[in-house]
């Protein structure tokens, strides 16, 4: 077990190191670091001062050392646009993104599991075929276009819901959230549905496949033979058994929601991390881009590491496979 964790930790640090090298090479060697890291409006004296600060007058390997040491201390540079440390900017936007991702995850579970179970219980019914066709569409449709269509329909034509921003926020456990105000909830609805569509299709498929498998098991037949009501059989005996794969996959997919929120946030002008990085890319605000990439990659490495460890605790075969490989 310990060996397994150490191996995975080593592997994760290699990924982070490769990532930092890639970003460093991209910013400092492919491009001109003076253009990229120093505000173009700075004068000559300022440029020289910053160059010394950043160690740009040093050889390349020492520069990489500087970059790593600064990054480890949480110093990823200052935004040109906002004049604030890049890291701080991103941390400020994090709650908005997480709120959106959690809302999307909830929608996917709350709608996806019942629909999937329905489709699995009566696979030949017309409603089940409609649900499955819908899930194929959910996989195929590019989410940015669906978002635009949702804005057109619900915000522009019908005027039911707002199309941009977060609405009123109130503090909750020290962070600003939208879901506790009516206005904020209205603002949250469209982007959350948009972000959830892909995962919703996924949950429907998982729940349907699980249901079709479980429904033929002996314990379901036995429950029916005992004369339990259909509702109890489905809600207790069946649901419990299909939840395992659904919960596993959703845990893995949360990071994906955060990554894909880049698209949804841009369409709905939701002020989260994703919109921040796209804006920064357009405005050539390199420190923010570098900081975002490093943070998100780090987040993924941590998620993957945790999933690996949890898996190896739950299923010893994973560990053994890794040792024999």
């Amino acid at each position, binding site marked *: 077990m310990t060996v397994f964790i150490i191996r995975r930790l080593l592997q994760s640090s290699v990924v982070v190191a490769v990532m930092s090298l890639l970003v460093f090479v991209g*910013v400092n060697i492919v491009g001109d670091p003076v253009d990229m890291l120093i505000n173009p409006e700075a004068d000559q004296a300022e440029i020289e001062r910053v160059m010394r600060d950043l160690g740009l007058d040093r050889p390349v390997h020492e520069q990489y050392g500087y970059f790593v040491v600064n990054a480890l201390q949480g110093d990823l540079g200052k935004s040109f646009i906002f004049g604030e440390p890049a890291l701080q900017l991103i941390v400020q936007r994090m709650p908005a993104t997480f709120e959106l991702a959690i809302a999307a995850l909830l929608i996917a579970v709350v709608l996806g599991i019942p629909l999937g179970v329905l489709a699995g219980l009566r696979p030949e019914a017309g409603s089940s075929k409609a649900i499955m066709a819908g899930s194929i569409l959910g996989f195929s449709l*590019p989410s940015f*276009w669906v978002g*635009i269509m949702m804005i057109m329909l619900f915000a522009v034509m019908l005027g039911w819901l707002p199309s941009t921003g977060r609405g009123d926020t109130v503090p909750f456990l020290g962070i600003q959230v939208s879901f506790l105000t009516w206005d904020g909830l209205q603002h949250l609805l469209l982007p959350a549905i948009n972000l959830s569509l892909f995962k919703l299709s996924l949950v429907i498929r998982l729940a349907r496949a699980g249901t079709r498998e479980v429904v033929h098991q002996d314990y379901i037949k036995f429950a029916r033979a005992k004369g339990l009501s259909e509702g109890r059989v489905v809600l207790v005996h069946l649901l419990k058994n299909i939840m395992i794969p659904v919960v596993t996959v959703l845990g893995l997919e949360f990071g994906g929601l955060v990554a*894909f929120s880049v698209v949804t946030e841009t369409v709905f002008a939701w002020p989260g991390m994703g919109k921040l990085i796209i804006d920064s*890319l357009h405005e050539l605000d390199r420190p923010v881009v570098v900081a975002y990439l490093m943070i998100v990659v780090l987040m*993924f490495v941590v998620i993957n590491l945790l999933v690996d460890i949890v898996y190896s605790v739950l299923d010893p075969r994973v560990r053994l496979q890794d040792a024999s490989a």
Partner: protein
Amino acid sequence: MTAGIGKPAAAARIETPFRRFASDFLESRIATAALAVFAVIAFIAVFAPWIAPTDPYDLAQVSVLDSHMPPGAEAFDGRVFWLGTDGAGRDLVSAICYGLRISLGVGVMSGVIAMAIGCAVGLAAAYFGGRVDTLIMRIVDIQLSFPSILVALVLLAVLGKGVDKILIALVTVQWAYYARTVRASALVERSKEYIDAATCLALSHRRILFRHLLPNCLPPLIVVVTVQTAHAIALEATLSFLGIGLPITEPSLGLLIANGFEYMLSMKYWISVYPGVALLVTIVSINLVGDQLRDILNPRLQK
């Protein structure tokens, strides 16, 4: 649709693997229709300069006076804009034809390059095994643990905009899927007797890999090709919509949709909607063809 159905005389013909494959495929009406639709789209994409009513990027043929025309409106010279015009007065029918050309071109080209790389790497991993295999598959696993959009975002943030850059990003996103698929089926094939026979004949590694092993790994590969091409087209559109993909000089469907987005709030819906429909039809038709291919190529489902 007509070829397979209503021809019971097929028994008189010799059944080749390809004929069996084709008739299996044509059994599904939906998949056949999807294939026909995709053929039309591919035709439009290839011959866009000859099919499109105007060249939307030839300034002599575009007039700002025609901008924001709704679908079906008539220009001063009597031409009809069947799907309307965009903010610069370009005919949307023509813009979509040219957009399809770019979107499909980038998607297919990235798919071909990724397949070549993925096949070579996957075959090598399966054939040589041991440390090579462990290393390659670890890299594949790590890469696949990141969502495609994040990988593309990292690369484009580092590389910048451009056709070559988006190709690099799309190839990087896709190669691992090909490598994994090819390795999995090559591992199964490798232990079969014909490979032992070829090894005993002292054929070269290259000959065994590419003439014996690869052809037998094709069925699952074909399915991955369709799924990944659709995925690449959608990803390119998304990245271009975000403004970090193709440059403005290569107006793919994603850029057309992005252009229309700003007019959305003033009810000029057609500028975004129609390029989106074209994108949608393309992706869905490829996916439907892929679904049918998966069904007929899956040995477990074979009758």
